[in-house]
């Protein structure tokens, strides 16, 4: 028997597998396909204070071993998420869920996080700081250590549950941003969000995506994620949730060796809706293949020597 249990910010999980926000909705589309209680947890669709339609379509472009999306945080707004989505989720998911929150100002982050923190089903808050800061001239909160620390502080001040700050890889020094979040009281860090990318349609000579640019994800970005998880996990003491291009159990092990406590699976869910269940089913055999008895034993082993 191998041990796949991990502890993320004080909450024990049966395994480290977490479908990433924006690729798993509010869970129930997937609950029609398999019992989603096999998951460690999942991070629900990025929620904001007000309802959002998001960007114009097309919002999706394919790439070699990946995709670009520019959905733009479509969600029904926090009130409706609490009134309509969470009750539906309760019927099919019995574990604590990770609430993914976005905002366009400090006030919005505080408002939404305070509301969602009170929901019994919520285990962790994952705060996405990759959206543009309307007060900061449209620059993302996640691109400066000072702004990242500010968001962390205002969220921590109004919440009781573990706060995980989700970082953007589109920065010059991810380590300084992660450290600023840790100092501001973050309970964990998750990374990486998507890489800013673009595709051009050769027939029209125009960008494929209406928003021109979007977030690049999928198998192609895994080496960037592994590198950043490695860098950040050696610089902070709080747990790191790794993601970026995870598509199988070996990828999960690689992220944990880089220093991740748990691992999120994003774009792969959109290609194979059963991928998280398959990873969980495969994990014990893949651990055995590499002589791993306990997943916690390999955490950050790449840093040794």
């Amino acid at each position: 028997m191998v041990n796949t249990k991990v502890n993320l910010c004080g909450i024990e999980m049966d395994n480290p597998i977490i479908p990433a926000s924006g690729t798993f909705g509010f869970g129930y589309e997937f609950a029609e396909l398999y019992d989603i209680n096999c998951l460690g947890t999942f991070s629900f669709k990025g929620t904001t204070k007000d309802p959002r339609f998001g960007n114009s379509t097309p919002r999706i472009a394919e790439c070699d071993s990946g995709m670009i999306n520019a959905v733009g945080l479509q969600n029904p707004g926090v009130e409706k998420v609490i009134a309509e989505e969470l009750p539906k989720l309760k019927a099919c998911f019995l574990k604590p869920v990770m609430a993914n929150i976005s905002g366009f100002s400090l006030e919005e982050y505080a408002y939404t996080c305070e509301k969602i923190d009170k929901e019994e089903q919520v285990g962790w808050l994952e705060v996405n700081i990759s959206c543009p800061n309307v007060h900061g001239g449209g620059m993302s909160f996640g691109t400066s250590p000072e702004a990242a620390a500010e968001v962390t502080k205002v969220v921590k001040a109004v919440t009781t549950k573990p706060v995980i700050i989700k970082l953007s890889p589109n920065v010059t020094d991810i380590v300084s941003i992660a450290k600023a979040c840790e100092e501001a009281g973050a309970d964990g860090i998750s990374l990486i969000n998507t890489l800013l990318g673009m595709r051009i349609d050769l027939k029209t000579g125009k960008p494929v995506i209406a928003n021109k640019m979007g977030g690049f994800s999928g198998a192609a970005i895994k080496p960037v994620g592994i590198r950043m998880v490695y860098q950040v996990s050696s610089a902070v003491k709080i747990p790191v949730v790794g993601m970026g291009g995870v598509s199988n159990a070996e990828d999960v092990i690689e992220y944990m060796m880089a220093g991740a406590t748990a691992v999120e699976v994003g774009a792969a869910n959109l290609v194979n809706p059963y991928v998280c269940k398959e990873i969980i089913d495969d994990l014990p055999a893949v651990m055995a293949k590499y002589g791993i008895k306990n997943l916690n034993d390999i955490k950050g082993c790449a840093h040794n020597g």
Partner: protein
Amino acid sequence: MNRGIYKIISNKPLTKDIYEMKLEGETSHITAPGQFINILLDGFYLRRPISICDYDDKTITIIYKVVGHGTEAMAKLSEGENLDILCGLGNGFDTAKCGKKTVLIGGGVGVPPMYNLCKKLMAGGADVSIILGFNTESEIFYKEEFEALGAKVYVSTVDGSFGTKGFVTDVLKDLEYDYFCTCGPMPMFRAIEKIAVTSGQYSFEERMGCGFGACMGCSCKTKYGYKRICRDGPVLEREEIIW
């Protein structure tokens, strides 16, 4: 929806760039005409959503147009090869809402989903007309197949090389009907919307991420809120569409 491995039993061109592929596998998850399948191809990250033209208890027929690298790769696949497919996706045509004299309107590669719909409506005793719109005679496909079903078939070609010269609306304006269902390009939809005199259903196309409602890649605004083309559509009712 189910995910399964489907065996190609035939894959052949109908015109210069339109292909017909027949697949063998599980079809019990298909619940309505106008639904689609999402095909995983070697070397491509995202699946290819293709509408279902026809199906029975163990085979599916799809018709696709070669428009990019993915469909080019599909055209090269041979009989006997297996494909990983998500089957029975989307909200198809609601035949219960169709009338006794329904007209179906297919434009180009929008023609295929009309086939099973026509079959279902004819089986229900309806008087069905179908207007097939193409640019030119050499692009025409499935005319005989619709005729074999017993439907009244009208063809329009933009250059007048076959049937009525002009667009599907040049046929539609003179027909008597009590309901319509259509699939085709947006300019055709806009032209139909201008002259159609009854309720109807439109089947939309959009770039999709997942094809089953998870990623919000293909959302649109309707009079009844935001909908996903892949899951709440591709078929939407005329009354809810914002043009």
